[in-house]
């Protein structure tokens, strides 16, 4: 039974006088509460990191030697004010796509690459323009490029797609980003391992399969997660390539 003395609300009738003050307080608390929650949740967002498309650099065009890891790299031999000779750039196409079809025929050849730089710390990637405007062979003999083995390593960290990590998306790491990263990897974007500790001065390593193959599909399940994994590391210019063994995946202790 309802209380005789309590006001009785009927939606299509005027608000009972005894409820007005109460409902005013509830309304103020509701509106103020939502504003407070919106503010708190909004300012609680973590820093997405310093990666970004460097549109401020303008279109960058350099010449170098194309290498396949199997993911394509360009070892810059003739740079510019922004990209010095000796720099190694990972290459990607527009969106979540690779440039493999254009790069494979040019492996080991001197080529000109052109596009927009993505940069995060020591990680540099070039998103190429379409067709031959983005990648084409040039006259000349390709200088010999060195590869320095750095031995076998067991690393703790996270597998990401190199493009989102480099700044195509902010944030571009973590489990909430896993599906997006997988879609990039399916599209052929170079994968990158973010090591919790620097390896020979770099926390970002291009990660591949153990025998120079593409990242094994079994490792897609571990994208975005904090894992340990073993493999051989080699230096190609200023990029480290991590040839990871998918059987060695573990959980950090």
């Amino acid at each position, binding site marked *: 039974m309802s209380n005789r003395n309590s006001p009785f*609300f009927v939606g299509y009738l005027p608000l009972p006088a005894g409820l007005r003050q109460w409902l005013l307080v509830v309304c103020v608390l509701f509106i103020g509460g*939502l504003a407070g929650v919106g503010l708190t949740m*909004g300012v609680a*967002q973590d820093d997405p990191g310093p990666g970004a498309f460097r549109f401020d650099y303008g279109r960058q065009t350099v010449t170098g030697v194309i290498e396949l890891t199997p993911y394509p790299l360009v070892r810059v031999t003739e740079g510019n004010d922004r990209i010095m000779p000796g720099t190694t750039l990972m290459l990607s196409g527009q969106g979540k796509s690779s440039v493999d079809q254009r790069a494979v025929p040019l492996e080991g050849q001197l080529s000109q690459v052109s596009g927009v730089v993505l940069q995060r710390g020591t990680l540099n990637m070039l998103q190429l323009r379409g067709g031959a405007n983005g990648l084409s062979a040039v006259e000349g003999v390709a200088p010999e490029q060195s590869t320095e083995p750095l031995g076998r390593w067991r690393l703790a960290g996270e597998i990401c797609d190199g493009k989102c990590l480099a700044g195509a998306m902010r944030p571009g790491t973590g489990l909430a980003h896993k599906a997006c990263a997988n879609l990039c990897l399916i599209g052929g974007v170079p994968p990158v391992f973010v090591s919790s500790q620097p390896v020979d001065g770099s926390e970002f390593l291009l990660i591949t399969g153990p025998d120079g193959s593409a990242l094994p599909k079994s490792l897609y399940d571990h*994208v975005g*997660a904090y894992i340990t994994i073993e493999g051989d590391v080699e230096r190609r210019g200023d990029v480290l390539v991590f040839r990871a063994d998918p059987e060695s995946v573990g959980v950090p202790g």
Partner: protein
Amino acid sequence: MSVKYIPVQWNRNKWLYDAVMLAGVGLFLYIFLNLTPEILDHERAINPQVHNARAFGACAFTMMTVILCIGPLARLDDRFLPLLYNRRHFGVMTVFVALTHAAYIVDWYFAFSRSNKYEALLFSNTSYGQLVGFPFEVFGIFALLVLIILATTSHDFWMKFLSPPVWKRVHYLIYPAYLSVVAHVSFGILQDQQNHAFTVLFVGGAVSVGLLHLMAALKERQRDRDLAVDGADWFDVADASEFEDGFAKVRLLPNGERVAVYLMDGKLSAISNACAHQNGPLGEGRVISCLVTCPWHGFQYDVRNGQSPAPFTEKVPTYNLRMRGTTVQVDPQANPPGTPVDPVSLGMKEAT
């Protein structure tokens, strides 16, 4: 109450309800979308698409949390009943906010590839065999589909079309949907959080929903114990002296049905406690203009026959009463909805 179906039967209280709701939601989104980017001291800003997706996702979760708190709050304190009145508008608004969240996510994370973005949403992460990295998107998809179904069927037309019991069961899907949202957040953004302010608010909101429902359930259980009746064929309701004109005594019958026994103009009549609209507790209502008025949405019934006044067509079952000395007794066999029953005068010895 409605006798014909129009999109919304507006009244002043609905306008006020929606205005307050929109003010709260609008302020939440305005602050999250426009003010927090200025406050965040990041070297590089979060992508606007991600920021927007988070704003609408956080807002949808907060709205669902508030909506699910209203029911138990109203059971615990009837001063919250006005918040129940137009709750369906709150729910429909939540769907639009949740859809906006989903649109930002799909158009950002799942775009820019050669695959269809909706197909990519389903195939890009298939790690269903593990907890870390589980495709939390499926929880969001399920919750969104449920919200769309609930919003689409929220109108009274659908309640009539499906029948109130079926409609009610369909709308209980809000609970699995909310749990699914909790899983969506827990397996998603919560895994990456470094700043735990969001975690505290999220867990606090979800726990509040659970606790309030538990408290309301315990109160209902205690109330049911108090309402339980004794007897053989007829069951005691109360002594005649305990009735107040215009108010009801509610009793829980052995068959699980609740009966509301009203005293009106010195005579007693009994109807089902469950409103034909949304099972609102008629026994907690009032007699207004000689009609029992449901405390949830104001549906009205003539207590003598369980019928809504013309031109309305809602009906509830009636019950037979009799007096044994000064004790009012009820026959637990309900009459078909809308069956007239002669009221029992408090002075009469027996009536059927």
